[in-house]
């Protein structure tokens, strides 16, 4: 049974008069890996900072194990909910002293600290690194030491902001495996904020999308930014700057649309349908997705389109082929 560990209620955060977060409700269950996807400036770091009790929300509540965090000891709570910053900083001393830092803060004795440091280093695959100076560690090693340092505190929730942003490709797999192990063997709840959609889906049990500080239903592809520019009866036009998309009635303050790749029809010629959106373009990319083929069609904006392999073969499509893409206004998600 899912047990809530963190719960966000009517959370808002305003910086300099601008609302950067608005989350009516979100529950993070114990022992799960959550992914928060969003572009830069979406509010991911602010959300993690609020969950890590580093930044207070403008309004709303955070519950930890059902208790409002404002009623709990903030320092003690930070050891339970530990944030690893994007581009984490290691203190300019040895690896051992970095990992033992949180334990020293808690007044834990040297013998126990040494044992715990060893254990945490083993967990992240850096045995024998105790006496190494942090200056000179690679990006991957640095990230693993940062994870070990957080792990030393025995946290119940680990928050990671872009955990592999400064890590080489080989270390990305290693860091991801460590995070899975932390979750599987220690039952730590993990929240990962990233703009790397593939990574988030690879790692997470549940994924939420954050756009301009608001949670949305998962818009996996064809996410376009823009604004509503005109209204004609029950039809609205959403302008991305490069493309005008007909959408169903929406709030005028909408800033993004998303078009499911499966809902887009590709044809050689314009087709007469009830669909309100039809654009001419050229195929700029083709990729094999197993049962289907994913095309990227440049119609001013680059739209991803999924078609069957059979259609792809019958239409004799290729890169640079001129095509039309057509989709209904009701297929477009606006938020």
């Amino acid at each position, binding site marked *: 049974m899912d047990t809530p560990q963190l719960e966000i209620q009517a959370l808002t955060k305003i910086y300099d008069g601008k609302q950067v977060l608005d989350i009516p409700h979100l529950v993070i269950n114990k022992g799960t890996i959550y992914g928060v996807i969003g572009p830069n400036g979406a509010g991911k770091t602010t959300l993690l900072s609020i969950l890590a009790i580093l930044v207070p929300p403008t309004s709303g509540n955070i519950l930890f194990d059902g208790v409002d965090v404002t009623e709990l000891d903030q320092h003690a709570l930070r050891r339970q909910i530990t944030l690893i910053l994007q581009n984490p*900083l290691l*203190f300019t001393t040895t690896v051992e002293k970095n990992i033992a830092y949180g334990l020293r803060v808690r007044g834990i004795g040297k013998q126990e600290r040494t044992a715990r440091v060893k254990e945490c280093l083993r967990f992240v695959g850096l045995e024998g690194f105790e006496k190494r100076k942090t200056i000179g560690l690679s990006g991957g090693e640095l990230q693993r030491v940062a994870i070990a340092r957080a792990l030393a*505190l025995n946290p119940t929730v680990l928050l990671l902001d872009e955990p592999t942003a400064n890590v080489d490709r080989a270390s990305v797999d290693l860091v991801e495996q460590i995070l899975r192990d932390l979750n599987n063997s220690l039952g730590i709840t993990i929240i990962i904020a990233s703009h790397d959609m593939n990574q988030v889906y690879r790692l997470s049990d549940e994924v939420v999308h954050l756009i301009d500080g608001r949670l949305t239903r998962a818009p996996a592809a064809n996410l376009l930014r823009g604004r509503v520019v005109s209204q004609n009866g029950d039809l609205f036009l959403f302008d991305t700057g490069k493309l005008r998309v007909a959408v169903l009635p929406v709030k005028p303050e909408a800033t993004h649309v998303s078009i499911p790749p499966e809902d887009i029809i590709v044809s050689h010629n314009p087709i007469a349908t009830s669909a309100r959106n039809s654009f001419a373009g050229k195929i700029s990319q083709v990729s094999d997705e197993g049962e289907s083929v994913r095309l990227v069609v440049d119609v001013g904006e680059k739209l991803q389109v999924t078609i069957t392999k059979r259609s792809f073969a019958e239409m004799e499509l290729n890169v640079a082929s001129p095509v039309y893409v057509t989709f209904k206004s009701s297929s477009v998600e606006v938020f």
Partner: protein
Amino acid sequence: MEYILYGILKAAELIATLDTEVFSIALFSLQISATATVCASLAGIPLGFLIETQDFWGRRGTITLFNTLMALPTVVVGLLVYSFTSRQGPLGPLQLLFTPKAMVLGQFILATPIIVALTISATHAVDPRVKLTAMTLGAGRVYTALTILAEARFALMAAVIAGFGRVIAEVGCAIMVGGNIRGYTRTMTTAIALETAKGEFGFSLALGFILLAVAFLVNIFFHYLQSRRD
């Protein structure tokens, strides 16, 4: 030229024979300046840290003031301490004038602004993520402050050394409030001033060499500590 050569030879002799007076003056100078520097560090480092990290009205003006006070003329400080510690002054009853305590007080006033101003810039240069990282690991205000200072330790050490360098080499304040009393308040710089006036170049040069050697050793020590970081 001959008297300079004679002076150098005499200085070499005084140092080689470990002349009691030369070395007792050198030791006394080190004691006075080290005590003043330690006191100035204990006051100046926390003060500089607080000025940099706290928001208060007049903060920029305070920083400018301490930067200005770095160039405080030693005779002005000597005059200030003299007027406060002389018999008619507010500290007169303590009978501090022409004692080592008055010299420490004067040197403390000289070293503190340097250590405060350099601590402000050392703290300012610390990566802001240090504070955030300490907080994420459960550190309270005091522990976070100590962590920031620890990260700034090499710049702070430079601040302390700059303060020490300032007071070990000053002569104006030491001569005014110490009185250059032989065997009691005579430092290397006051002795050099006096002995040169008397024409005792050898004695002055011997102390001058020791003064240079102290500066040299302090710098070597500092570079050694910095190299350990890398």
